């Protein structure tokens, strides 16, 4: 004979009696509320008094010459892109290194493919002269 008064929660993840989604949801809402409050206060408490001079770009007290959007040398862009790519690579490798005990050899091989592909890309960029710094390029 089965026991009669067994408590069967309807949606167990939201049960207040067990660790689950409810705690997370409450936490999430508090974070949202605090963020909203901070954003509101920093917007509300600041009194903006825009004047034409204040809205101008600061250039050592002198009126700037020409546009802020000027043509700039390509190497700056290339450097930025390369940095982005290899930065992302680092992020993956870090995450992978943290999980090394669980992943073992198969994980190692999978990551190796990723690194080798990127390495090939770097070699190609190097060979093409993408890493050479020529400031006149693109002007």
């Amino acid at each position: 004979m089965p026991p009669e008064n067994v408590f069967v929660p309807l949606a167990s993840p939201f049960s207040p009696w067990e660790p689950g989604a409810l705690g997370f949801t409450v936490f999430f809402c508090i974070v949202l509320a605090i963020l909203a409050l901070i954003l509101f206060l920093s917007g509300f408490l600041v009194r903006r008094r825009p004047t034409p001079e204040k809205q101008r770009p600061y250039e050592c007290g002198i009126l700037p010459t020409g546009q802020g959007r000027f043509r700039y040398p390509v190497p700056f862009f290339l450097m930025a892109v390369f940095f982005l790519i290899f930065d992302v690579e680092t992020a993956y490798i870090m995450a992978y290194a943290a999980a090394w005990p669980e992943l073992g050899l198969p994980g190692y091989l999978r990551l190796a493919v990723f690194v080798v592909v990127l390495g090939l890309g770097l070699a190609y960029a190097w060979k093409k002269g993408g890493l050479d710094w020529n400031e006149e390029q693109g002007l």
Partner: protein
Amino acid sequence: MTDIRDAAFAPADYIINWARKNSLWPFFFGLSCCFVEEATAWGPRYDIARFGSEVFRGSPRQADVLIISGTMFKKVAPVALRLYEQMADPKWVISMGSCSNSGGMYDVYSVVQGSDQILPVDVYIPGCPPRPEALFEGLLLLQKKIAAGERPTRPVLHLPGGCEGGRRDHLIDGVNKCRDTRGPGYAGIPIRGTAATEPFFHGSRTAGMWTPAAPRIALRPDQEAVAADLLAAFGEDVALVPDSQDMPTYAVAPARIVEVLDRLKHASPTRFTRLEDLTAIDETARKDRPGHDATVVYTLTSLSAPGMVRLTCALPTRDASIASATGVWPAAAWYEREVAEMFGLAFAGHPDPRRLLTHRDWQGHPLRKDSEGRATNMAPFTEEEARRLEPVDAREILGPHADDGDYILNFGPHHYATHGILRYALALRGERIKAVGLDIGYHHRGVEKIGERQTWHQFIPYTDRVDYLSGVANNLSYVTAVETLAGIAVPPRAAYARVMLSELFRLSNHLMYFGTFLQDLGMMSPIFYALREREMVLDIIETITGGRLHPSWLRIGGMAADLPEGWKEMVDAFVKIFPGRLKEYHAGVTKNPIVRARCVGVGGISAADAIDWGVTGPNLRAAGVAWDRRKAMPYGAYADFDFDVPTREGGDCFARYLVRMDEMEQSLRIIEQAASNMPGGRYLSEDVRYCLPQKDEALRDIESLIHHFVNVTRGPRLPAGQAYAATEAPRGEQGYYLVSDGGSHAYRLRVRTPGFANIQALPLIAEGLRIADFVAVLASYDYILPDIDR
């Protein structure tokens, strides 16, 4: 009666005010001398962090206190206005120092007589310059003002009422301020003594005084040879002036000046390789009018056979034209531009005949005798005037040196790394500097004009401020020139004390250099060490002179008072401590690989270029030229001292740094010798015709008292003539060229400064470098603004 709402918001007001007043963030904005004391306040001994204001912000967006430290120049006023506008609200303004408060001692055409005429000032700090303690007093007053007067809660909560931030209004001359230093009510009454100065000299008492003629020099054999060579080559077009007081002087026919200069540089028996100075004299207010209205004066220096020569060209009118010397010396470019704007003369064939120091739209030629010198006699400087004198566009400064594809960047006048209000317009290709355009004159204080209305003694305080980190060393250049002109012998005790003080100031200057140079390279700590040692030097200087930056301590023929009791112990203690500190610097900095990477091989200049452009001082010695005026053409007591002239090769940033480090060691040697061999005796010359009597004598006998009275009131009459004397100031060779008409003040006073020539050569060094290297070059180059703009 307190409003009920005021009472309701009082606790919140109190809290907001408390937070604001204890975290005032000053704007990193310095105009001149006062900023040195402001920076010292940030240093280790004074430590402004105790008052919550150590965060000096480089951008106006992050700052809420504008400390106007220094002289508000008409040329920089539009910049200061804009920077104030760009600061975050609520904001406050402290006016630091007499210049900023009222124009101070600079009642001159280029200076605003009080920054409160254009900016709303909350607190005034008196002093010239105010000590760091005075700055703290000002800061505390501002804190009190905030706590007592502001009710910020309601503005913060967008409710009506309440108040926050400093004043918003500026003062208007004749309505709520008076520019007359005597106070209101004197309108139309000229300042005392005006009539006795040029252009009319009515009632000048010097006419009734007699002085012996100025001393004359006898030509050395090598100078005779030059004279003979010139006479042979040019015949009647070059004439040796018979009564040269300081160096051989030739009157040259204007049509042949370029040929004569070229010969002296390239073909004469003694080669004069440096154009020391080029200036002019307006002759229209002479007591005895010569047949011409203007004279152009060229001063040349020979480095191979230490000696100088002067050439004068008489021009019929003040609008006359003369051939440009830029073909012989490229360095003539700026000198000629300055003469052209100051006197109205024209230089035919000049590659770039624009105004140099004054604004493009400036009216008139300030150094003409009939041009108004006092700002208080001119219309008040207003905000509208500031808008009119808006600094010119960078593209205009660069001219043909910039292309359409270049990115134009203004570097200064307000910038951490410019070490003063100097503006570089950079044409950039990426990070690389393609061309540098210089815009100077933001710090033009018109001292040459002032020199023509102050008596010979009265001018001494102005010399201190020409290179505001070198104090007494500046006095020395000026009094040496006066002493040359009048033939005054300086007693040995004074001569030694002058040497000692000059070297102490060299140390103080180089210590500041050491700190700021490395700070600009991104090394934060050295400045704290350097300021610690600098305070020790300043303590000695203060014990002896009573002042820190501007002691105005030297007098014609000696110094203001005898050395006080206890000076020797202080100097001895310092001499003992300092070598160890120097070792510390070398250990921490000189071997630092990052410093080396930033400096070695960066921004070099060749010896030939440096000489050709008139570069002097440590910057010249860093290029491998062993030329030091203290050794080559000794003045004062320097011939008695044993010291070396440190040099380096290559003239790069690292060489410039090392030369200065070595110079500190040599200065210390000189100080040690001066202290141990200090002679006894008088500290002022007995020649009371020109010099003040010693104070104890003036208090004891009536004769000395009379001399004292005459010399401090109407001033001594110096013989008619001209003299140039240069000294090896910390930053290079600083010379004073004095022209006397036999009056109690200079007829023409010209300051030849090292900075002017050094900075003119800067594009040579900087073009082709990257921006970060440019900062290293500026920091290692060690210039100072009043020394460039005067």
